[in-house]
């Protein structure tokens, strides 16, 4: 389900992009799922076609969806690959933490600090 609030300070395209990205990340929209056409989604949400087009374009640039010509837009496998890389990196990190004898709570704090440090660079 997608909700667009016109009273929100967040622009509608960003609301749409963020919700679609969240659904792709949490698996609600699985790899290969077909997204509605830009025109159809724009009509359903009462948005301009350009607004939905911008959200789709940004998702495409982020590698979360791909457009296959006239067939439409689909959730790409790139997002799932990224998740798998993160899982592998986490397993490697857990192995290092265990081998050097770092306390698990401290290990989590290190990760949280690293994520906080990485977050501004992503946005």
């Amino acid at each position, binding site marked *: *389900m*997608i909700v667009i*609030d*016109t009273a929100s300070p967040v622009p509608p395209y960003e609301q749409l992009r963020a919700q679609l990205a969240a659904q792709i990340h949490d698996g*609600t929209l699985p790899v290969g799922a077909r*997204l509605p056409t830009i025109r159809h*989604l724009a*009509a359903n*949400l*009462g948005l301009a076609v350009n607004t939905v087009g911008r959200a789709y374009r940004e998702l495409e640039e982020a590698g979360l969806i791909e457009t296959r010509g006239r067939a439409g837009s689909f959730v790409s496998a790139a997002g799932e690959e990224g998740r798998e890389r993160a899982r592998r990196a986490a397993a490697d990190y857990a192995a290092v933490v265990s081998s050097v004898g770092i306390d698990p709570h401290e290990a989590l704090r290190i990760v949280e600090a690293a994520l906080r440090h990485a977050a501004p660079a992503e946005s």
Partner: protein
Amino acid sequence: MSSDALQPKDLALAGAWLSGHGLAEARPTPLLAVRLAVRRRARLANQVLLAALFIGAALIRVTFGFRPQHALPLLLLAAMVAALLLAQVLLDQWVRRVDRRAGAALPRRTAHLAQPGWRTLLGTPHAAFMIATSGGAIVLAASALTVQDATVRHSALVLLAGLLGVAAGIALQLRDLLVRPIVAEDETSLTADVIMRVEDARELTVPSVPWTLPVLLLFGFAPVWWDAAAIALVIAGVLVLALISKRTPSSVAVARQVLSVR
């Protein structure tokens, strides 16, 4: 057709509708009340129009007799059928216009990403029933063209044109239902939107015109075998429709299935 403003009783009726569809915990909103009210009024107007067609056809028969010598009665009947079809198109446009206005006024819009097709919204049994009844009525009308009596043949032509017009109108309305934008502000209204869409689609399959028009235009003029076939078509149709309505999943079940896809 212009009085689409919300009336106090509309909210109460929307509450009753929600309860009747297993959504008793939801609060009836003005959006839902307006959308249901326009459908209720359009349905009532449609029934009044059909009744008017019945009464008009009966008056024409009483006035001109069962074997009219002039073309006037047939022309009057043809004009009434055309007026009924036009009025049905206008009623459908009215419902769509009210939906569009209600959607445009919402500060918050909700949509699901699934795009239910005709199989989901209408269902194969209803679609097959609609094709069978329309096809049966058209074959019945065409068979009347083989009768020697000129009055019967002229009436059959009017009937055929009316039935083809209705069939084309239903096809267009169904196509529109599939692509019509969602009008919802939250999860409840989203569920209600799908339920209304399913019920609108199923209502289109009730062949009120293919059942009534042959009887109105030809019953009494045509040979006995034709009259018997027309009545058999109606009785068989009513039985099959009752069976389909009993066996197919409710509109609420269809809506829940659509919304659970993603």
